[in-house]
């Protein structure tokens, strides 16, 4: 196969492996903090216990797909309450906008799983191969015993981390201790093994091999973010008006007017986890982690020059500073109207969800009337209508309930368990923990009853009250057509 490219011109550039150098500074320390916090949340959450009594699992966070329940600490969500999850997802989406509006691509820089696991794997690289120079040397060197050994160890650690990552994921979907035992004894469901296999592979490939390419070529979020950023957004930027023209310390001594602050030490590129040169200007490859700022500030300190040649600032503030103004605080940028608007929407959804959560009913009644036939004439002239009631108990304990008739004078009802002879206007039932109980109910009304609306009223008969009311109809024969 021949490519249509003109001879000599190549449109595809092979990946240049990135070997970021160790750096220290406020941004790096924040990145460490985020790494530890997010990974701890991810790996440890399924192991948190939460006592819900004998009828519900004691795992704090559990997506119980088999039984269609979602547990999160004291909250239990049924499938029909999925809007809570949808609301959380919307809040997460708006939260991304909010963070972007306030702090630029901070999500990319500190908390995106791709960033976190890439960072983790780069630490593994340093642990096994040494810092940037050692890694470069090993990469360029021949495949001797040392290299084979080091690569073997490194990739084994990659694999272990990846496996642990995939393994932690499935713990959210079943009781973690039980599943762990089942997993290692070969008794877990096949989908558990498949999920672990897939997530192990994706973690290994994305975090271990592809790394920054995922951000630069695959991920849609940087593209969306570029549309969200403007001159008022915080970005990591190189103050070219201050840095250019680059030159050594000696050159600047010779020609102070021509040579800028950048000594072209290349530290900013060496520490960059995506291998980007920030001095080329803002780019999708810059995930805004700020490690180049840490590196550059250190150099500036050593040279006795002002910090912030590479800075976390808005383009507008850079212009302001260039014109001789004071360097502005980050907080001022973060509190713009856009951020406030996003915060407002985000908080409004959150308050609405909390309100819905606080006022939701934990028992529920639904009524399905038999329509074929709509009514039955009984031998003594009474009219019977049949209904299927569904009593839902969403609490993790059995609850006694009563169903009463409201309206329809003279009517009574019974169930298959009771029998006709004990018919009354109130049924007393107990619904098992976390269950929906279907009940066939026969409602009989005296001779001459005409078609009418009435209600089934559900009430809890325990201390925690609550109830529901469903209006339905009662069909009866027309007087004239009674005999047909």
């Amino acid at each position, binding site marked *: 196969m021949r490519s*249509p490219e*003109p*001879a000599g011109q190549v449109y595809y550039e092979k990946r240049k492996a990135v070997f970021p150098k160790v750096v220290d500074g406020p941004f790096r320390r924040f990145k460490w903090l985020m790494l530890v916090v997010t990974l701890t949340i991810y790996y440890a959450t399924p192991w948190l216990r939460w006592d819900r009594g004998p009828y519900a699992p004691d795992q704090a966070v559990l997506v119980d797909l088999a039984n269609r329940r979602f547990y999160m600490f004291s909250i239990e969500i049924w499938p029909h309450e999925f809007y809570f999850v949808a609301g959380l997802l919307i809040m997460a989406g708006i939260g991304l906008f909010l963070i972007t509006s306030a702090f630029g691509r901070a999500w990319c820089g500190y908390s995106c799983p791709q960033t976190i696991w890439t960072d983790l794997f780069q630490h593994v690289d340093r642990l096994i191969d040494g810092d940037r120079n050692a890694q470069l040397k090993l990469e360029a060197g021949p495949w001797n015993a040392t290299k084979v050994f080091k690569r073997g160890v490194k990739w084994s650690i990659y694999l272990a981390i990846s496996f642990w990552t995939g393994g932690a994921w499935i713990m959210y979907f079943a009781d973690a201790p039980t599943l762990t035992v089942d997993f290692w004894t070969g008794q877990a469901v096949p989908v558990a093994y498949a999920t672990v296999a897939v997530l192990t592979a994706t973690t290994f490939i994305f975090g271990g091999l592809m790394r920054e390419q995922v951000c630069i070529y695959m991920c849609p979020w940087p593209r969306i973010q570029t549309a969200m950023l403007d001159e008022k957004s915080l970005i990591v930027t190189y103050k070219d008006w201050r840095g250019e023209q680059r030159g050594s310390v000696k050159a600047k001594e010779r020609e102070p007017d021509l040579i800028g602050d950048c000594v072209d030490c290349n530290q900013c590129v060496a520490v960059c986890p995506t291998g980007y040169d920030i001095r080329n200007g803002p780019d999708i490859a810059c995930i805004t982690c700020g490690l180049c700022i840490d590196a550059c500030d250190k150099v500036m300190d050593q040279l006795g020059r002002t910090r912030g040649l590479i800075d976390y600032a808005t383009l507008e503030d850079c212009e302001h500073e260039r014109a001789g103004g004071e360097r502005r605080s980050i907080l001022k940028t973060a509190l713009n109207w856009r951020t406030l608007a996003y915060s407002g929407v985000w908080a409004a959804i959150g308050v609405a969800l909390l309100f819905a959560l606080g006022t939701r009913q934990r028992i529920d009644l639904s009524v399905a009337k038999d329509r074929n*036939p709509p009514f*039955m*004439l009984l*031998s003594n*002239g009474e009219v019977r209508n049949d209904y299927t009631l569904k009593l839902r108990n969403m609490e993790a304990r059995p609850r006694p309930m009563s169903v009463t008739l409201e309206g329809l004078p003279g009517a009574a009802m019974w169930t298959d368990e009771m029998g006709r002879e004990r018919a009354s206007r109130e049924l007393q039932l107990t619904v098992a923990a976390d269950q929906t109980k279907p009940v066939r109910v026969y409602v009989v009304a005296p001779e001459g009853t005409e078609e009418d609306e009435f209600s089934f009223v559900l009430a809890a008969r325990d201390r925690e009250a609550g109830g529901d009311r469903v209006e339905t109809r009662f069909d009866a024969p027309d007087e004239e057509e009674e005999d047909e």
Partner: protein
Amino acid sequence: MANKRIDEATGVETVGHSWDGIEELNNPLPRWWLWTLYATIIFSIGYVIVYPAIPMVNKATEGLWGWSSRGQLAKEMKAEEQRRAGTVAALAATPIEQLASKPDLMRAAIDGGRAAFRVNCVQCHGSGAAGSTGYPNLRDDDWLWGGNIKEIETTLINGIRHPGNDATRQSLMPSFGKDGILPPADLAAVTDHVLSLTGKSTANARGAQLFADNCATCHGPDGKGLRQFGAPNLADAIWLYGGKREQVEASIYKARAGVMPAWTKTLDPVTIKMLAAYVHSLGGGEDFVAAPAATPAAAAAATPATGEANAQP
């Protein structure tokens, strides 16, 4: 293929043809695309060999694996049959009056009965089992031949007035008018008497006398019917053939004799059992009382009107 040349603008070789000076660059298909094509060709060869593929005169080639959609259906039906085998065996071994003590089996029977009802019964009794004129409503509390689960099963097994079956539910009301047993005036008097039982007409002595002479044997002196003869209760609100005066009179004139097939000729005993359980579950089923023996006294005690009489405390 003569005039192959390198196109200057793109640096790609042409295919060598020229149509009115228009040439085509030789850009072959990507290799992955070609390999995919070859792979599908190889797959199709294997498919044609192992699966039915080539249409012949009467049928298609069978393929090495012998697969067919009919065969697959048969296999799935067989698997389903095996899955249900335990339930079916348990149903076969359980006398129907003992089903009530086995809730799981009862539930399975009702579910199976619901399916069988849709196939065999809805033609007359309707999909809601509510019947229509001449076809009894199976959901109410009025039963011609008995409404406990055992009686329903017996009715299903033997049918009603099924020709050629000695065990069938059998009874015959004379056509009082058509056969000239009663003159028209007497017919009207009896009709009045029957309607007076439910307050729809005024009682009259002539009618009462005629009823006692001609009807009470089967329908009982008070018109409440007798299940051993399948004689309907005339004193209740339910009229199989309509309760208007002319409808009642027509029933007396030409008599009525509904027919139901003896299902034992069509269905297996387990399906009949399931149908009985389903019909019994529709809201009108009566409790089964183990009678000491089917004496006339016991049968008479089973008052036909409501289920309450038969209900166990």
